């Protein structure tokens, strides 16, 4: 699983049947500190996520097929959670409970 920011949506009408009715999100993979990492992904939304959310993403076929209930589905990337906060080495790296702005100001005053 990896962390990502939802940066947009993807609309596709001609697609493999297993994707019908699923919302597709454009994802920017991140390091725990929130820096971009790797290639832009597309994920199926199973966490009611939207643009601006930091999310947890599953990138493994068997788990994805289990979630969608189709043992032959050609799917791999699924958004499975919306992140509340992230802590590494006792430092708060991300906190959804505060606004992005106030969090940024706070971290400037107290260097992590």
């Amino acid at each position, binding site marked *: 699983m990896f962390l990502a920011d939802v*940066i*947009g*949506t*993807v*609309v*596709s*009408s*001609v*697609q*493999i049947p297993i*994707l019908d009715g699923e919302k*597709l999100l*454009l994802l*920017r993979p991140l390091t725990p500190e929130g820096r971009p990492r790797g*290639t*832009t*992904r*597309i*994920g*199926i939304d199973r966490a009611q996520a939207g643009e601006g959310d930091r999310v947890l993403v599953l990138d493994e*076929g068997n788990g*994805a097929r289990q979630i969608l209930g189709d043992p*032959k*589905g*050609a*799917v*791999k*990337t699924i958004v499975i959670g919306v992140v509340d906060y992230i802590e590494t080495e006792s430092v708060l790296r991300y906190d959804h409970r505060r606004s992005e702005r106030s969090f940024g100001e706070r971290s400037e005053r107290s260097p992590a």
Partner: protein
Amino acid sequence: MYLARVTGRVVASTRYPGLEGVALQWIQPLDESGAAAGAEIVACAAVSSGPGDLVHFVDGREAALACPETFVPVDAAIIGFVEQAVAAGRDLAE
């Protein structure tokens, strides 16, 4: 799953059994701004697509599951035609 642009097509008349009739396309993976990200690859087309189309594709073992015969040696498959991909208010499909 990734976003990509179809850049061309590959014709190979001698193939591994099970891949007969599967269209092969050159695709260029894209980043969130629509710029090229990494090397172009060949993908089999589970949905019909042609050069210039914006598509999404799956890589790894899952790619074979998108083909008519699911136990075949492929590692990338186009699984959808993208009509709209909005990032930061901009539609990459336009």
